[in-house]
Structure formats: structure tokens, C-alpha cells
């Protein structure tokens, strides 16, 4: 199974993030309103560590002078040149089709399902009474 257990749900409170390492890659996991999103911790521009960036809302606009602030539009800003990446899809806001950071599917499963041995837990210790975040790499 490609899904890897990377964190306990309780490790990542709402609005927070966690940096994990999976298969030699650094991945940042975000908890937005109870949903988990995962992207590679490396800005495609010059390699800035996205986990050190600002998590904020992408300001959008339908016409000059108007500014939309829609909280669902969560982005992580690279701490270096401030490029914005949608935490759901990894797409940049400046050029979504051309510039993106790898994003990974996530899943939340209870420990009871994991200890049954169907999933690769690697070195991550799993308890039946907890819930876990898994990502697909």
C-alpha cells in the first residue's frame, strides 16, 4: 500500500502544520478545519522550506480595486520569495498550470484499522484508540 502513516491526528491541531519525513522526502502536513493536506517541503523556485512559510488566505479579485478574502483559499507562502501555493492542490496562485509543488493525497484512519496490519506503519507507532494521518507517496 502506498499510504504511509505520518502523524497522529492530535499532533496537528486545527490551523497548524507538521513536518514529517517519508521515503526520504520532507512533507508538510496542514490541518485546515479538520481536513489534512500534504505538500512537498520544497518550493519549486529555489528550494525554500515551505514548512517555514506563512499560512494565509490567498487574496483574489474579480476586478481592479476589489479584494476578495475567502478563508477556504488557504495558501502557504514560501518563506523566501513569497510564492503562494494552494495547500489543497499544491498549485501556485501565480501560474497554477505551470508552477506547482507536489501534493499528496491524505487519509485519516483510526488506529484500530491500522493495527490490523493492512497498512504500512513503518516505524510509526500506532495505538488502537488514536486516529492517524496517512499520505500517499
Amino acid at each position, binding site marked *: 500500500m502506498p499510504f504511509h502513516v505520518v502523524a497522529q491526528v492530535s499532533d496537528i491541531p486545527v490551523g497548524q502544520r507538521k513536518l514529517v519525513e517519508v521515503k526520504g522526502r520532507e512533507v508538510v502536513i496542514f490541518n485546515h478545519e479538520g481536513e489534512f493536506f500534504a505538500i512537498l517541503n520544497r518550493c519549486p523556485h529555489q528550494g525554500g522550506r515551505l514548512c517555514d512559510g506563512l499560512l494565509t488566505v490567498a487574496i483574489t*479579485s*474579480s*476586478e*481592479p480595486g476589489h479584494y*476578495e478574502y475567502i478563508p477556504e483559499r488557504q495558501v502557504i507562502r514560501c518563506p523566501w520569495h513569497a510564492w*503562494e501555493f494552494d495547500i489543497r492542490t499544491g498549485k501556485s496562485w501565480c501560474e497554477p498550470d505551470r508552477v506547482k509543488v507536489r501534493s499528496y493525497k491524505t487519509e485519516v484512519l483510526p488506529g484500530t484499522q491500522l493495527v490490523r496490519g493492512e497498512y504500512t506503519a513503518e516505524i510509526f507507532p500506532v495505538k488502537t484508540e488514536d486516529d492517524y494521518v496517512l499520505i500517499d507517496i
Partner: protein
Amino acid sequence: MRIQDLRPIDCDMHPVVPNIRALVPFLAKNWAASVNDRGIEGFDSISYPPNAPISARPDWRPDGKGLPTSVEDYRRHVLDRWNVQYAIGNCLYGAHLALSEDIGVAMASAVNDWMVANWLDAEPRMRASIVVAPQNPERAAAEIDRCAPDKRFVQVLLPAMVEAPLGRRQYWPIYAAAERHGLPVGIHAGSSYRHPVTPVGWPSYYVEDYASQSYAFQGQLGSLIAEGVFNKFPGLKVVLLESGVSWLIPFLWRMTKFWRGTRSEVPWVTRPPIEIARDHVRLSIQPFDAPDDPAIVGRIIEHMQSDAMLLFASDYPHFQYEDDAVLPPGLSEDFTRRLAHDNPLETYPRLKEVQS
């Protein structure tokens, strides 16, 4: 390939108002009287001191001095000589210099009427830009509405340095009117001298003043894009006239890079600035700031990644080249035809409407 075989469209030539008296017949009575009563000497701009080398080629000056002011001069020097199909007259008379908006509006209007009488009516191959006074954009829009029904007006003309960056919303009535009439907006080298001609103050020498036109185009292009003028007016094309050309792409590289990080400041800019420019901005080819080296010229053009952006222009009577060397060296036949013919027709749709 000879220029004559191209039947080029001259997208930047300058009819010269010989003196303010030439405009008096086209001024309202009170202004005609004021010009005389108050001794108003004129609105000639030091952007082109009349005897400065750049202001006119020696062999284009009547008897080697002064400025060519007649249609006959232009026919002899360029229009007939190069078998020009159409020529767009961009009159640089400084209506925009006037600190009184009323005088500015009056002068702009007079220039347009003078243009009709002396150039458009006199020569069927002539077309013209509508000169407006940027001092009051609403009244500028009214002047555009007034002149636009005459289809020989094919563009709206603004100087490159005014009171505020041209992308600012206060100027939008001009773009609205231009777009409404299907007219591109031409921004031409020249200043209304509201600000020092450089961001670091007033330089000593005229050669620096002329060099500073380049800074103006950088600032204006930045403003038009950042303020979202092309979002608000998606049908608008802007032509940068007498800008120098080779500054364009390095500027857009820089601006595009910054934009990637500052997107949230200008969230209506949803495409890279360099792509917006390729779609909406055109440039006249004279002057072309590069050595006479086909390899360098070729590189500059290749960096533009578009064959639609350049427009043939004589920049008559300014002294940018000698003899018939109006085209930068080394251009392919195909590219030359595009810039001499196809791009101007695409940029100025009205050229196709009125046949000469």
C-alpha cells in the same frame, strides 16, 4: 527587399505645428483673443528643442535648418520615397504642457482640427492620433468622442510623462473611450514636465532628458499592468511609440519575477506581466536601441518571443538613422513584412476601414 516593395505603414511620424498662429483659426474666440492679447508664445516642448540634433535629420530640415512642417516635405522625404501605404500622424504639440486644463483642452482640440485641415484632408494616405489633454481625463474622453466619428483618427495619443502613472484609475475615462471606439492608445516619448524627468531629479543635459524617455516607458508599462488596465479594458491595445524597444524584455522579466511574490497586492493580475504585454502592447521600431549588428538585433527580437509586437515607423523627422536605414539589420523577410504591414493592420483596425 526594398522598403518600397513592402508598402509599409508608418506608425509614428510627426506633423509639426509651425507656430501657435497656425492653431488660432481652430481656437474658440476667447482663446484666439487670449493668444494674441496675452502674448501666449506657444506649447512647443523642450522634449525636442527645435535645433537639437535628434529633433530633425539635417537632410529633412528645410534648407538645413528649422523643422519640416508641410505635407509636401513628408511626401518627398518618406511617404512617396518609401511608397508608404498609410502614415499615422502623432502630433507632439504640447497641449499636455499647459498647467491650466482649460488651455490644455482648447489646444488639444485645436491641434486635432488643424490636423484634419492640414494633413488628413490634404493627403489621402494620412491617418492621425487624437491628441488629448491628460490634465482632465473626463474631458479627454469627450475629445475622443468628438473626434472618433472621423475614421481617419486611428489612435489616442498621450505623452509618456504626465502627472501620475498612466495606469492609475483617474486616467480610465480615456481608456474607456478608446476601447469604446476600438482605438488603441499610443503613449509617445515626451513629458509634460510635472515631475523631474528622472526618479532622482533633474539632469543637466538634454542628452540625459532624451535618455529618460526610457525610464518613462518602464514606469508606464509597470503601471498599466499593475493597475489592471488590461483587465478592465480587455479590448485595449497600447502602443509604445519611440521607446527604444530593447528595454522591454529585461523590464518584464524583472516585473514578472516580482509579481510572482507580490501577486496578493495586485490580485486582479492573474497572468504573468510578460504575457499580458505580449497580448496588449505594441512598440514602434524607431529608435531601436541596439548596435547595427544583426546578431544582437536578432537576439533582442528572439527574447520577445512574439512576431506581433513591432510596428514599422519612420519617426519622421527625428534623427534616429541615416538615409533609408529605418529597419534594424538582419530581419527576415517574413518578419519585416509582419512589422511593416500585418502588425499595423492588426493594431489599428480602422486602417482597413477607409481606403485611400
